[in-house]
């Protein structure tokens, strides 16, 4: 079975490295980008199955990335999970309205993040995804 590829977009190199190792240990391929511009170019080049996206980025922010991707036909349907230090009370709803599948506030619970990723695959394959309450 082909491994799923996940693009990690975060300007915090420590978190990128940690997420990369964590996701690889769960059998995912990973690519990384450290700013909004390279996030879009990496998405075009790598065609990831999913994007983990920080909101606070150099050269734009996560909302700009979501907006740009949504206007590129071959990238518009890539599922996005936002992982941000920004206040979830403000940014969760805004992220979901912008097209994100889920929002996690840093520091992120690794098990819940993994469950959210698997939820995306379940949703794509027509299976009933588990609810956020079940994850928590």
């Amino acid at each position, binding site marked *: 079975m082909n491994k799923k590829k996940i693009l990690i977009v975060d300007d915090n190199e420590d978190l990128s490295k940690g997420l990369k*190792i*964590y996701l690889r240990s769960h059998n995912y391929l990973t690519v990384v980008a450290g700013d909004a511009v390279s996030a879009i170019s990496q998405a075009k080049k790598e065609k990831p199955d999913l994007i983990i996206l920080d909101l606070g980025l150099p050269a734009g922010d996560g909302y700009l990335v979501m907006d740009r991707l949504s206007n590129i036909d071959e990238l518009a349907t890539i599922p996005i999970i936002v992982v941000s230090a920004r206040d979830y009370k403000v940014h969760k709803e805004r992220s979901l309205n912008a097209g994100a599948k889920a929002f996690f506030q840093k520091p992120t619970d*690794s098990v819940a993040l993994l469950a959210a990723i698997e939820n995306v695959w379940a949703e794509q394959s027509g299976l009933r995804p588990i609810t956020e309450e079940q994850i928590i």
Partner: protein
Amino acid sequence: MVKKNILIVDDDKDLLLALSVRLASVGYDVSRAPDAATAILKAAQGKPDLILLDLGLPDGNGFFVMDVVRQLSSAANVPVIVISARPQDVYKEAAILAGAKDYFQKPYRNDDLMTAIERELAAAMPDSAASMPGLSDT
């Protein structure tokens, strides 16, 4: 006062729980990781004040964890104490060379471990020695 955070990395769930309860009972904030990858992710985003690290882990080993943590700008200087069933006459020197501050072979004396934790936290942040649970005047 902000509690010191200790990340415990061990695939033995019973030990993880017992040590968590013990550390929490003396005033530490505790986070837990059952494998190497989770440990690295938690170290990268949680910035623990100290890591208690088993060597034998399901998806790697403690040496790998130490190596990666040393590359994290936010956690490179976090003190690591190894707790392992592996014989210390074989592994202690390698663990210290890899950056560990101390080595405890299981089974170990809890009081000795607590003393080592307080010592390493105080050494890492000399100005905050008074905030150590064992040294608190409250």
